[in-house]
């Protein structure tokens, strides 16, 4: 398990120490067609709970159906234009990486000030010039796409939360372009076969797609090079396609790695065979830092039934399908190929809410408004920060990021198992021998009357042992009070010892025993009944 490092680490640079009442700015996204926003009225409230003042550019949430008045009602200040917002804010939260601003006619990166912090998607590997430009401005930039994939950082993982939505939306897009129902049904007008969906790449998006397709009623098959996901696929009720090939594709950080040529050949054969059968193919295969692998060839697309749909979630990185055109929905030989790259943006309300929550968690990890520091000692913050006070800090130094390990071998388990085996033979024989000796002794010396009592005692003990194991654990307390009551049967002893001679010591002892036993009987049975009366469905 991971334990968070203490947050009040004083190693942070002095520049990071900011005064109280920090302002968070939410500009309107400028990328064409982008509907999402970096804070919803709901997450803005959470930001205020962390001590931030929240500024929102007017119409920032319009695409995601959040009105200016909703932000105002949530306690935000609505700012008329982007320039004054960037001017006033200490921390700027964005969705898309800085772009050319169409109305201002200048690049958003030029709005960044020294001592200002920008949090956004950056894609530093794909956008080296942007990184350079931002560093030149002298601020601090945190890239939501660089959050490390470790369990402690899951709540910050915007890639996962966006992929989740993308996977869901991919199924919805496929359904709207598919001419048949997903669910099978037999009606008076005839039979409707269920749609067959194949999902390639079972990451967050793939799992979301499997879940959505399954709940629409489709038959879902899934493929992934990482065998660890098999169980997850099956738990969603889908079939996991296997190659029976001795190679596991788990790479570092839970992502996939590049496979051997033999593996890829076998994989392609499987896809070719499946393409003829399935109605919908959803591909989500990505390898970090590499173009998306080509999985669905033009030939495969042409072998698909007319009316089939391919959704390529890797379109932005070049596509898993040979005929994909990024950003477009095209028809090839009667097969619809969906290469949309803005799927999360098409569910802007939900996507903004999740992304906003990711940002709230990040700002909370940065210490909230009061202790706001970019702590470069913290593994998560270090990896996320791509520019620190004008210095490019990307890529972060490599730290061991364990992939979900398949077979952790505990060094202590073998020794633990050896201990019982090492028990000396005589200790195992001790009890049988003692019991045997006791039996012999009793058999030689005990009188006959004792033997009958012993028989009764031993048999009753075994009977009790069998009966009591059946008692439901929830009734163990009543069981104890009932046994209290029935062990009050000892009154019989007291009753028989009482004689007509009131002053005799036996009568006195017997009377006290009788009194105690009766308390047990009356109290035990009654309190049991009282408890049992409470048990109801």
């Amino acid at each position: 398990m991971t334990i968070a490092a203490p947050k009040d680490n004083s190693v942070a640079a002095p520049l990071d120490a900011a005064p109280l009442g920090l302002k968070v700015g939410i500009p309107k996204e400028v990328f064409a067609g982008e509907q999402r926003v970096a804070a919803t009225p709901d997450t803005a409230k959470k930001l205020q709970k962390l001590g931030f003042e929240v500024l929102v550019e007017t119409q920032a949430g319009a695409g995601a159906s959040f009105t200016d008045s909703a932000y105002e009602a949530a306690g935000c200040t609505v700012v008329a234009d982007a320039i004054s917002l960037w001017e006033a804010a200490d921390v700027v939260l964005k969705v898309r990486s800085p772009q050319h601003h169409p109305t201002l006619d200048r690049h958003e990166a030029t709005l960044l000030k020294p001592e200002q912090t920008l949090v956004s998607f950056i894609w530093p590997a794909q956008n080296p010039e942007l990184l350079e430009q931002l560093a030149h401005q002298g601020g601090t930039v945190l890239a939501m796409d660089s959050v490390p994939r470790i369990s402690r950082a899951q709540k910050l993982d915007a890639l996962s939360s966006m992929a989740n939505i993308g996977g869901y939306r991919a199924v919805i897009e496929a359904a709207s372009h598919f001419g048949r129902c997903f669910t099978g049904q037999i009606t008076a007008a005839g039979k409707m076969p269920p749609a067959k969906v194949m999902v390639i790449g079972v990451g967050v998006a793939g799992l979301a797609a499997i879940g959505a397709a399954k709940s629409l009623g489709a038959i879902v098959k899934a493929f992934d090079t990482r065998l660890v996901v098999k169980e997850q696929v099956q738990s969603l009720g889908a079939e996991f396609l296997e190659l029976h090939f001795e190679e596991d594709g788990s790479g570092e950080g839970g992502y996939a790695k590049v496979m051997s040529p033999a593996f890829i050949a076998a994989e392609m054969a499987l896809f070719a065979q499946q393409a003829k059968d399935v109605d919908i193919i959803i591909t989500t295969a990505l390898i970090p830092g590499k173009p998306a692998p080509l999985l669905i060839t033009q030939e495969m697309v042409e072998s698909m039934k007319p009316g089939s749909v391919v959704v390529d979630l890797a379109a932005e990185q070049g596509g898993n399908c040979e005929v994909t055109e990024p950003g477009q929905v095209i028809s090839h030989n009667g097969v619809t190929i969906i290469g949309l790259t803005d799927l999360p943006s098409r569910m802007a309300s939900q996507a903004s809410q999740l992304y906003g929550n990711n940002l709230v968690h990040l700002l909370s990890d940065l210490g909230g408004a009061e202790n706001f520091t970019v702590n470069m000692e913290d593994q998560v913050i270090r990896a996320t920060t791509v520019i620190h006070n004008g210095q490019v800090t990307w890529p972060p130094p490599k730290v061991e990021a364990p992939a979900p390990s398949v077979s952790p071998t505990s060094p202590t388990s073998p020794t633990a198992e050896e201990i019982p085996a090492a028990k000396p033979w005589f200790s195992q024989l001790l009890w049988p021998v003692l019991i045997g000796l006791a039996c012999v002794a009793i058999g030689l010396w005990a009188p006959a009357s004792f033997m009958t009592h012993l028989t009764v005692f031993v048999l009753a003990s075994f009977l009790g042992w069998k009966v009591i194991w059946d008692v439901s654990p929830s009734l163990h307390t009543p069981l104890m009070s009932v046994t209290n009551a029935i062990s009050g049967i000892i009154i019989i002893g007291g009753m028989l010892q009482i004689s007509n001679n009131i002053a005799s010591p036996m009568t006195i002892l017997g009377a006290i025993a009788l009194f105690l036993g009766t308390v047990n009987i009356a109290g035990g049975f009654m309190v049991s009944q009282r408890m049992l009366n409470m048990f109801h469905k």
Partner: protein
Amino acid sequence: MENNLVTTAYIVASALFILSLAGLSQPETAKRGNLLGILGMAIAFGATALICQGYPVQIGSIGLGVLVGVLAAARVAMTDMPEMVALLNSFVGLAAVLVGFAEYLQPSAALTGTDITVHRVEIYIGVFIGIVTFTGSMIAVAKLRGWVPSRAVLLPARHVFTLGMLGAIAVLVAPFLTATGSPGMWILAAMTAIAGIFGIVIVMAIGGADMAVVISLLNSYSGLASAAAGFMLNNDLLIITGALVGSSGAILSYIMCKGMNRSFVNVLLGGFGETASSGKAAALEGSATSTTTGEVVELLANAQSVVIVPGYGMAVAQAQHPVAEITRLLRAQGKQVRFGIHPVAGRMPGHMNVLLAEANVPYDIVLEMDEINDDLSHTDVVLVVGANDTVNPSAKNDPTSPIAGMPVMEVWEADTVVVLKRGMSSGYAGVENPLFFNDNTLMLFGDAKTNVNGILAQLSASTAPTPALAAA
């Protein structure tokens, strides 16, 4: 003729007692089981009444006993059931001692030869078990009530001391076998005194967290005391009943020990908290995420499945009633709410189930640890109310932990865990709990009852409009 009638009645009573315990296997049949036990007792009592004498004394003792028993049973709070059971155990023990002494004064049958020796040994053993049960139970009651410190109180060189006492008791049996009249009486009294101290010393040495085992064990002893009385009185009904009760207590002790991953010997040699606090559990540092009742209400509102894991802390804070009310509200919203009970939650076996039943929680949503552990990974929110060691992941993950191997509720598998707790202190076992530092764990600090009431108030405020609309 009359004697055979009584014996037959005793056979019927034995059968009814067995059926009574068998009836307790299910909540549906438990009440009938209890009534069968009452019937068996009435038959045994009626038959004995035919052959006994001194009716005024009989009626006086019984009347007083019934009065005290009924008053106690009607008034005892369910949180105090462990004390009640321990007290009733002690009564059986004391009764066995008294019956033993009376039997020594005037044997119920004329005996000769080895029968006398055997009878003496039976009396001696019966009185020994009885007095240990009595004094041990009294100390258990005092510990549960807080009259003596609940931590383990260890005498210096106590193992030598206890072994010495046991040795003295063993040696004294020899003169007792041949003694007659008052010398024999004195020997028996001396043994009783030593054994009484022995009972006190061993129970004093057992820590508060282990009281559940002690109560179960003393329950078993009280059965053995009855059985021993049966041997000395030549009464099979007492022997059968005693054996049943003895088995019952032994099984409960075994279950409790297993729930703590410890052996009988380990518990009896005492001092769990004491040995563990010096243990080498890795010191944990990290940040626990604290939360507010408002956030918990929001979590609950968005959850589909909720599991509540109560510990004795819930009973101490008297929070079971508001917890039950929260359960009712959430279930009315169509959410799945269940309880997960660890075998050693509470102060005696099954205690938590009774407390929840008293608070009107339906028993079919109260599940045992083994029944619910596999479901926890599909659970949205787990509320841990006043439990600590029973939800400690180190028991599973950290082989060096003092509680390694103890079965625990795997609450960390759930999406979110909310722990209601007074502060960051460790539990009875003195072991740090890494659960509190997990990312999916939220800590709700403060008095459990105040917090639970806060959650309840906000929940009922948010659900109130619905019934109002329905009424309009």
